[in-house]
């Protein structure tokens, strides 16, 4: 029987459990940021002195530091990868969605593209190293953009295709009858209609690319091309872990994502779930 007291109890438990969840999510992140504001020697001190300082952040952006370069490299890789993924992905998804292909063709293409998601990336590193080297693209932002595009394309195409599928074919017919060429139909009719999907895909690709680590680590050798993830890992040295620098660098890598999450929350959710549920 649902008495008023029962309902209040349920409500209390529900909110309580959620509070626990929220706190468990925030504690590790908070500990990270907290440590980024302390000196290295205090982080390892068993007495845990509380001395707050901006020293770590200052030294990350100080004269000899390459951190700023890494930050902008990450930004560049993210922007270009997202654009490239959208371009290639939207074109391919549109083609697969709105045109007639032999029955096995579409699943086959999607399958091959998705294939790369199944392979442990580490196994592809030697071959990718060779490919990039052949085009003088080893240790370059361009090279990373290409590799990241490859890894994100299957997902982008899949999601965009779902969005294009949901646009009625009649619109295409109508536009063609009105005198639009195929290309025009795509750019002027279809793309604007798929805008929410495109937004969702871009945000997800951006997040995945910003976070990418293994390829950036293996396919670059100097700060000219390295990204922020490689920079953070370089503080975790065999010899000496630079706790404070590492925390500050991680914090800086995290802040843009947290802001993005707050601002573009809707698109992230749609992006993560859109394809899966409908598919």
């Amino acid at each position, binding site marked *: 029987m649902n008495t008023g007291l029962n309902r209040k109890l349920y409500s209390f438990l529900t909110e309580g459990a959620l509070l626990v969840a929220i706190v468990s999510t925030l504690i590790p992140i908070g500990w990270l940021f907290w440590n980024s504001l302390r000196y290295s020697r205090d982080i390892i001190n068993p007495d845990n002195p509380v001395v707050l300082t901006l020293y770590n952040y200052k030294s990350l952006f100080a004269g000899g530091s390459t951190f700023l370069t890494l930050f902008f490299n990450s930004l560049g890789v993210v922007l270009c990868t997202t654009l490239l993924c959208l371009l290639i992905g939207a074109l391919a998804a549109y083609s697969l*969605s709105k045109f007639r292909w032999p029955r096995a063709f579409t699943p086959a293409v999607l399958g091959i593209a998705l294939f*790369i998601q199944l392979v442990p990336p*580490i196994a592809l590193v030697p071959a990718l190293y060779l490919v990039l080297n052949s085009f003088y693209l080893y240790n370059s932002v361009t090279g990373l953009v290409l590799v990241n595009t490859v890894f994100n394309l299957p997902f982008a195409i899949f999601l965009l295709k779902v969005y294009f599928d949901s646009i009625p074919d009649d619109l295409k017919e109508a536009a*063609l009858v009105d005198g639009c060429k195929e290309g025009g139909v795509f750019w002027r009719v279809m793309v604007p209609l798929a805008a929410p999907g495109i937004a969702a895909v871009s945000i997800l690709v951006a997040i995945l690319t910003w976070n990418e680590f293994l390829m950036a680590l293996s396919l670059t050798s100097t700060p000219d091309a390295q990204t922020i993830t490689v920079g953070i890992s370089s503080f975790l040295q065999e010899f000496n872990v630079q706790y404070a620098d590492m925390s500050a660098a991680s914090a800086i890598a995290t802040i843009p994502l947290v802001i993005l*999450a707050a601002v573009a929350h809707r698109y*992230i959710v749609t992006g993560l*779930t859109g394809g899966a549920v409908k598919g």
Partner: protein
Amino acid sequence: MSDELRTSGTNSAAREPYPSHVKGRRLRILGRPLGFEHWALLPLFLFLLLFVLYPTVELIRAAFSTVTTTEGGFSWKFSGLDNFYTMLGDEVFRAALLNTIIFVVGGVALQLVLGTLLAVLVERSRILSGLARNVLVWPAIITPVAISVTWWLILNSEFGLLNRLLEAVDLPRQAWLASTFWVLPALILVDVWHWTPVVFLLVLAGLANIDQTLYQAARVDGASEWRVFRSITLPLLAPTLVVAALVRTVLGFKVFDEIFLLTKGGPGTASEVVSSYVRKVFFEQVNLGYGAFLGLVIISVMLLLFAAFFGLRSVVFGGGRTS
């Protein structure tokens, strides 16, 4: 007029050949003139050729060869199934495979349970749901490298937060990342913290798709909350849960960043997973042929998982629908 004659997506006359007056001027492929739809796929095909086909061919080639270091370089020699026999005798690989399975099964199970729980809670909550929806997503989007750093600062046995808290309440410290017993549970904990939000979002979306009238009808009939959940919510959520399980399983098999940064597969082989082991084979043992073979094995396992998923899907979805 030629626009009308060109095939479009839904026109069932697609199989018919093109009228002869169209054929003459255009480039052709497989009997059809090259249209927008072909050019649109070209960039994708170029990418696939360069970055998927070529590396895969190299991978297969290496998997059946022995690659050794010689005077200043590498030499290839076809060696058939030698790598296969090596794998059979490789107890580290067996351990890595076992660890990966434990990691994936344990992690995914916990993620499914927690994710569903959180989604249900958020849906019913009034006060905290807005905040929860935002904050609970964060672990899934934060850089994995930063997450490794975060949890390293927590799980480190000398300076980590966890042991400091335990000491403060007089409980015994543990070597979370260095004990053969605790290391996998610790890594699963990190993984669950990291990826539950994805399941959470998927289930949330799935819940939103459930018709509310079903609930109302059940409640009017006097069903208890648990009954409602068990007989209505869960069955209708099943497709979503299957998708979530598949996505997390496939991604779980490939786990690398956290293992590499937190434990490097240690202590011993207690947290060695397939990705970290393949890396060791490639870059520390420099056994390219064997590493490639292991890569192939992993791909096959994933393909099997996928096939199993499609089998499950037709059962759960009620068959027939293509993506």
